C-alpha cells in the first residue's frame, strides 16, 4: 500500500458524506466498513454475481468494480436507501409473497436490477426479465419465483399508469 488518501464528497442515499479514503478502497468496503451499510454484499468480488449491485447516478453498477475514490460528486443509492424511500416497496412485497428470496444474499442486487429493468421496460416478457436479471446470481431459488414476482409488479405498475416514474430517483 502506498501512502496518501483521496478526499471525496458524495451523496449516499440522499445524505452528503465526506471522507478521506485510501485510493484502493473499494466502494463495497467503503459502504460496509465506513458507513455501516452492510446491505451491499461481497460475493464474487469480480463483477460477475451482482450481490454488490448499487445505483451510481441512477445507473446500475457493480460496487466491487468501483473504487470509492472515483465517486467524488456522485450520487450512490443502496438497498437501505431505496428501501427507506419506498421505491422498492411493491417489488419487495411481491418477492416476499412469491418467496423470491431464500438466503437473502442476492436480494439487494436482484431488487435493484429488477427496479432498473422496470424503469427501462414497462412491459417486459418473462424472457426479458430472465435476460435482464442474468447478471445477478442466485443459488437458492432457481429464479422462477423471482421472475414471477417481477412480472407481477410490471403488470401492476402498468395498470397504475405512467405517473410513478416521477417519484423514482
Amino acid at each position, binding site marked *: 500500500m502506498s501512502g496518501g488518501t483521496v478526499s471525496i464528497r458524495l451523496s449516499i442515499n440522499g445524505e452528503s458524506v465526506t471522507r478521506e479514503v485510501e485510493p484502493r478502497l473499494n466502494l463495497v468496503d467503503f459502504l460496509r466498513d465506513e458507513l455501516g451499510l452492510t446491505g451491499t454484499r461481497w460475493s464474487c468480488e469480480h463483477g460477475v454475481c451482482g*450481490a454488490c449491485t448499487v445505483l451510481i447516478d441512477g445507473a446500475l453498477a457493480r460496487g466491487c468494480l468501483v473504487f470509492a475514490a472515483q465517486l467524488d460528486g456522485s450520487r450512490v443509492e443502496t438497498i437501505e436507501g431505496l428501501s427507506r424511500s419506498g421505491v422498492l416497496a411493491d417489488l419487495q412485497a411481491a418477492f416476499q409473497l412469491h*418467496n423470491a428470496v431464500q438466503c437473502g444474499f442476492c436480494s439487494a442486487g436482484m431488487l435493484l436490477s429488477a427496479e432498473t429493468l422496470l424503469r427501462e421496460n414497462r412491459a417486459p416478457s418473462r424472457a426479458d426479465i430472465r435476460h435482464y436479471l442474468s447478471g445477478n446470481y442466485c443459488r437458492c431459488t*432457481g429464479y422462477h419465483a423471482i421472475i414471477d414476482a417481477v412480472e407481477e409488479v410490471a403488470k401492476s405498475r402498468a395498470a397504475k399508469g405512467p405517473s410513478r416514474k416521477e417519484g423514482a430517483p
Partner: protein
Amino acid sequence: MSILSFLDRPASYIGKRVPRPGAKRLLAGGGRYVDDLRLPRLVHLAFLRSPYAHARILAIDTAAASRAPGVVRVLTAKDLEGRYTPWVGVLTHFKGLKSPPQHPLARERATWQGEPIVAVAAESRALAEDAAALVKIEWQELPAVTDMAGALAPGTPPIHAELGDNLAFTRSVDAGEVDAAFAKAFAVVEEEYSFARHTGVCPEPRSILADYDQAGESLTVHYSNQAPHMMKEIFAKHFGLAENAVRVICPDVGGSYGIKIHVYPDDMTTVAASLLLGRPVKFVADRLESFVSDIHAREHRIKARLALTKEGEILALDMDDLTGIGPYSTYPRTSAVEGNQVVNLTGSWYRHRNYRARLRVAFQNKPPTTQYRAVGHPIAAAVTEAIIDRGAAQLNLDPAQIRRINLIPDDAYPWTTASGLKFEKLSHQAALEKLLKLMDYDGLRREQAELRKKGIHRGIGLAAFVELTNPGPAFYGVGGAPISAQDGATIRLDPGGSVTCAFSVTEQGQGTEAMAAQVAASALGLPIEKVRIVTGDTERTPYGGGTWASRGAGIGGEAVLQAAHALKQNILALAGIMLQTPPENLDLADGWVTDKSGARRIGLDEVGRAAYFRGDTLPPGTQPEMSATRHYMPKLYPFAFTNSAQGSYLELDVETGFVRLLKHWVVEDCGRVINPMLVDEQIRGGVVQGIGSALYEECLYDGLGQLLNGNLADYLVPMAAEMPDIEVAHIETLTADSALGAKGAGEAGTAGAPAAVMNAVNDALKPFKVRVSSQPMTPQRILKALARA
C-alpha cells in the same frame, strides 16, 4: 387422533402458502450475516495457500510479513502446535475407511492446491493480504496424484505413505443372482458415465468470527454454518475447552447446500488464532479461495450394466463406481457417504432383486470432496435413469412404458430393496402418471416428431428416483460422530399471549422458521404473527442436529408440534383452573381459550398475566408451566424415503452443441406438505442446482492438480436467462413415523434434475444414434458425440 385434529381446522396454517416472516427483513438489506458483525479489537485473517497440488514445505520465512503494517501475528503450523488435537474423518460404521489426521495449517507437506499454510492476522483484511504476500515459502514439488484410476494403479505412490495406498474406502454389494440373471437376459446394455467435480458456490462465502474471552474462558463463534450444536462439540473437543464454554451462533446464513457443515482447516485456524490472541478473529473466504478451499462434490466414473427381459423387465443391475475425494476424508461426516449413497440408491426404485455394486473411493491431490446437496443421489439417479432409457431404446419401448413396467407398484409397500433399503410407503407409479399428464407427455412427443421433420431437435427426458430424508441415528451417530439425529423445540407463552419458540433446526433461507411458525400457530390456535421462532444459537435453542439430509420439517417440525401440544395442555390446565372448567372441555382458537363449541372464554393474554404476574389469584399449590420442550427422532424406519418424478424438455442446437431448456416438471411426494410455496421453492432451487451440474458446472483440473477455472467468470453457474420455468405438483403419502407425517424435500430437485436433463439431451440426440454420458454435458461434449454420428 386428537393430535391430528388441528390440521383439519379452517384456521390451520398447514398446507397453506404462508410467506416467510423473515423475508421482509432480508429484502430490505437487513440480513445479518457473519461479515456484517462489528466487534471491538477485531482482527482479520488472510491465508497463504499452497500453489502446488502436492509439495514439501522446506522453509517458511515470515519475518517480513510480521513487520508489515497492521499485522498482529503471522501463524504457521509450528505456532499452533499443541494448541489443538488433529481430526480424522472416519466413522466406525464405514468399515475400513481410512484417512490421516488433519491439521489447521499444513505441517510438512501440502496435499492440494489451496490448502492453507500460513495465516496472517492483521487490523484489516487488506493489510493481512498485503502481509501474506511477503511470506516466503521454499517448496519442493512432489508428484501430484489427480486422476482417480491413476491413484489406485499399482506403483502409484500413496499420498499418505502411512496408509499404504490411495484407496480410502471400498464396499461391495452382491444381492440375488446377478450372473445368472445376466446369463438369461434377452437384452444387456452397458454404458460408462462420468460426473465432474463441482462445488457449492454459496452466495455468502464461508465466514467465521471466533471470539475467545480469556478472562471468561469462553469461546463464542459466529459462524455461517448449518449445524451449530455439532460445531460446538467439535470446537470444545479439539481445542480442549469445556463443552459449556463454547457457544456457536449462526446468524443469517447466505446459502449453504451442504458446504457449511464440514470442518475446514482455515476455520479451525481462525478459532485457534482467537484462542492464541485473546481477540475476536474473522475469516471470510474470498471467491477465489472459496473455489480451492470449499469442499468439492461428486467426481465419479461409473460403469453400469443392465439385464432385461424381452418385455422390458429389469432382471439385474451391475454397477461399479470409482470416486475421488481429495487427500482427506472430511471430518466429521466422512467422504465415504457420497459413494456409499450411490451404492445404496442406484436402481432402488425398481423391482429387480438382483443387484451388484462396487465402490472404490480414491485419495487425490485435489480439494476434499464430500457431502453436498443430494449426496450421491444425482449420480444414482442419472446412472439408473440413463441406462434404463438405453434399455428401452434397445427394446423399442417408450421411456414412460419401461418405467411403468419396473417401478415398485404403489400397493407393494413396505418394500425392501435389493440393496437392503426399507421403504415405508411410496407412490412411484402415481407420480409417474401425474408427471406424464402434467407435462402432456404424448403431446410433447407429437410436437417433437413434427419438429424433427423440420430439423429441430428437441428432447424429452424422464427420471424417477427416491430421496433419503429424515435420517435417524443410523446415518452418523452410530459411527461415533457428534451428529444429532433428533431435534428439539421449546415453546413459551409470553404474558401478552404470543409465543416464542426456540428451535434447534437452523435457517439458511429454506424457510425453517416459517415452517415451525406454521406448525406452532396451528397447534396452538394462534394467528401466525403471534409466533416468534428463534434458531441458530447453541445457548438459546434445545439440542439438535440442525440442517442436513432434508430433515428440518420431518424431524424438527414434529418436535415443534409435540412441544406445542404439551404447551397447549399446560395452558388449558391453567385456564381450566381459572374458569373452573375441566380442561378437556376447553380448546384454543385464534388466540383465545374457547369452549368446545368455539365460544371464546378468556384470551391467552389473560392466561399469561395470571401465570406470570398474578399467581396470587390462583388456588394455593397451582404452579403454571407456560413453557414446554419436546424432542423428536424418527423411530420406525432408519430413513423416511420420498419419491419423485421429473421431466425435462429441451432443444438442442446440433450445430453449436448448445442446449436450450424449455421447461421442467416435477411431481414430488414428500409426505405432508406444510407450506406448498416453500416446498415448491426448495424443489425449484434444487432442480436448478441439478441443472448446473448437468450442463455447466465443472472444476477443471490439469494433470498437475491446478484448478483452471477457479473464478465465477470461468466456472459457469446457472443464471436466470438459461433456466426454464419449473412446474411442481405434489402427491402426499404421509409417514406414519410422526403425527405430522412430513418427510424431507430439500434435495429432491437436485437429485433428479441431472437424470432428467441427461435423458432429454440423449433423446434429442437419438436420430444421430449417439449419446452423451458425461456431465456436465457441455457444448464441447455434445459436439464430440455428434462428430461420431
